[in-house]
């Protein structure tokens, strides 16, 4: 057991306690948490900073507003209902279309209007929020994901998660929805995590739970070697989020829209650690590299584009391999 601890340490694996104690407590000030925890506030801030986000259709804060949902939606038949303060992807209802009286969810199940309203009242009641506090439900327009991803996803929308430390992207992965995850891009719910090379934007091997997968279980497509479109843009956007929300240790979730390109879906002040498994790399060495770089820079502050470039050059797979070999 001691051997394994030392081994993981050498691999630079970050544990939950270390993430919380050494990074989140130090670099994420509590006063900025609501900016990312409340998805409505987060969206407003993103819009202010000119960062692209999916369009917000409406917000429901009170029970009596639930009746207005029909008006709010209007002719829109493709949308996503989310709790503003949800966690872990719970409580997200994705509607892909409608059939007569019914809506169709990501699994192709029929959802009647009453079920939709009940779901919204549950969200407002706080069933998905931390501590059960009253919450708000937000309705967003559906992202039409880039067809480039279609071979790698089952229903749902795949996303890209980038961990940004002090404004420097340090690690990235893509989360591919599967039949098991009900179209949700959530690793806990069965989505596949795929490591992405920061330098090139090309996917590496995938993991489902803790085991490796080479092919998507529902589409059969090979996971590795896929080039994520608009990679440079994704990294630039991620870097800019640091200025937007002032969180030193940040998870940025990005989706690729067919028409609009990369959109920031949400930010996370306590990003999970599975990204290490998806990438087969520990985070710690990269975080240390960023720290060292910042010390080197002294008082100089790099702009987001410079930071993204640094990450591509130094933390990219090519540079990392060279370092390992050297």
């Amino acid at each position, binding site marked *: *057991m001691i051997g394994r601890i030392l081994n*993981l340490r050498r*691999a630079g694996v970050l544990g939950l306690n*270390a993430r919380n104690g050494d990074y989140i407590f130090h670099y994420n000030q509590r006063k900025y948490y609501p900016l990312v925890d409340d998805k409505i506030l987060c969206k407003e801030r993103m819009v202010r900073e000119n960062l692209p986000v999916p369009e917000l259709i409406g917000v429901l804060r009170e*029970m009596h507003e639930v009746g207005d949902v029909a008006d709010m939606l209007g002719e829109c038949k493709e949308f996503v209902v989310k709790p503003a303060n949800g966690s872990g992807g719970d409580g997200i209802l994705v509607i892909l279309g409608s059939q007569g009286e019914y809506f169709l969810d990501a699994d192709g199940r029929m959802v009647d209007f009453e079920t939709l309203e009940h779901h919204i009242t549950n969200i407002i009641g706080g*069933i998905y929020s931390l501590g059960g506090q009253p919450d708000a439900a937000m309705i967003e327009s559906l992202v039409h994901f880039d067809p480039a991803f279609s071979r790698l996803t089952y229903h749902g929308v795949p996303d890209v998660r980038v961990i940004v430390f002090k404004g420097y992207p340090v690690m990235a992965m893509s989360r591919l929805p599967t039949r098991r995850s009900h179209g949700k891009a959530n690793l806990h719910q069965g989505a596949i995590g795929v490591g992405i090379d920061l330098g090139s934007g090309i996917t590496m091997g995938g993991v489902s739970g803790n085991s490796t997968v080479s092919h998507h279980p529902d589409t059969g497509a090979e996971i590795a070697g896929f080039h994520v479109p608009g990679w440079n843009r994704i990294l630039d956007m991620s870097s800019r989020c640091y200025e937007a929300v002032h969180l030193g240790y940040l998870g940025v979730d990005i989706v690729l829209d067919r028409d609009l390109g990369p959109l920031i879906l949400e930010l996370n002040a306590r990003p999970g650690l599975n990204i*290490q*498994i998806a990438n087969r790399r520990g985070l710690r060495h990269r975080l240390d590299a960023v720290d060292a770089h910042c010390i080197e820079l002294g008082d100089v502050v790099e702009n987001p584009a410079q930071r993204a470039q640094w990450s591509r050059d130094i933390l990219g797979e090519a540079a990392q391999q060279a370092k390992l070999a050297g």
Partner: protein
Amino acid sequence: MIFAYKVIRLGYPPYPDMESAAWTVQAKLELTPEKGAVRASLTLPSRPSGYNLAQENFVSRGFGLTVKEGNFNRKADWAIRRLRDSKSLYYRLLVIRDTQQRSFASRPDYPAPPDLEEPFATAARDLVNKVRAESADTESFAAAMLNRLTGSEPDENMDLFLAEVENFRDRVNLAQTLLAGARIPTLQLHGIRLDADAQRAKLETLLAVYNGDEWLVFDPVSAAEGLPGDFFIWWTGQGELAEVKGAHIKDLQISTRQRVKSSLELAQQRAELQKSRISLISTLQLPIQTQAVYEILLLIPIGILVIVLLRNFVGLSSFGTFAPVLIALAFRETELLKGIGLFVLIVSMGLFFRFYLERLRLLLVPRLAAVVTIVVILMTAISIISNEFGYETGLSVSLFPMIIVSMVIERMSVVWEERGAFTSIKEGIGSLFMAALAYLVMSVDMFAYWVTVFPEVNLMILGIIIALGRYTGFRLTELRRFKPLLVKEKAPE
């Protein structure tokens, strides 16, 4: 760590002091019925010198019970119209050592000289005269008389009396008669010695002699003077311990047991500490009932420490951060296995109803309220049903913190829907496991003793929790979780 140092350095006894000051004394009267109505009376101790009485209990199902209170004479009278089988009556009390000396009898009248037949009357007179000549006061008179009685100094008058003595009781009576001949008031003291645990404590009789000012106590066998410190006076005078009409006393036994952990004993110990060392803050000044509450409250930090370890070091997750501790507290009353059984029963039944409620599409707060109500109804039902069948554990179901149970049910059902039954049940079992572990740690007697006598132990626990709070190493479960990330060891060259 400083606190551990403090405890060790200041030398507070870490274990309960075995020289206990409190005893549980129980008298068991076993009756076999003879005929008709049965009356049994048991003499009860009343304010014995050097002891205090507390928590008197009578166990006598079916019998009517009256307790006659007198100043120096208390009696419990049991009565039953008809007794079919042998029956045991119990009287139990807590006896606490007390330094206060009390008189065990009021100021007596001077007894009339005994009316004896010849040749005993003359022999008694001679004996009294002879002993009076050898003694200075009542005390030395009684001592000399008892000495003669024990036969250490042969005397032909005494031999005359001793020829009639068949047993110990006669001997004591004889001593009383002879002392009455000198118009000295005497009293028999019956009691037991509280020096060791005994299934069948031996009843002993001492003789008290009144010297005009106070009672002096003599051992009628050895003639030694003084009331032994461990002698617990049960009753005085000529009467018997128990008298029964309409039944036959099959057995009468007095058992004594030292209370190793009575809070009163702790209080005594604390008093000792106070005299010799610093005065320490302790819950022992509180009333007994409040003490019982604090005994539980003070244990909570230890339970929580267990949860901290399990969550941040082992990496288990549970429903509700500290819910397992509260469930563990309920286990204290129900015992572990039965507690787990009851908990699983309530939660699974609650889940069943919760799924039904889901179909009614209730809003969150009313739905939670409905779950709480259902949990209360379930608890009541379980208590009533188990009472019908005579299972006593079922009754303790009411001790479960119902709000916590309701929240567990609610969280489980949400997780059930969102993540599937497997995850939900797994986390439920995880919570239960943590509760069981917290219970096991909290039920360690030594911890219970520590927190009640040294509440500052909780400061120590606080220190440990704070120290653990900065642990940023791996959790045990993470060793498995991050297995794919292990660096391949280089093959030995």
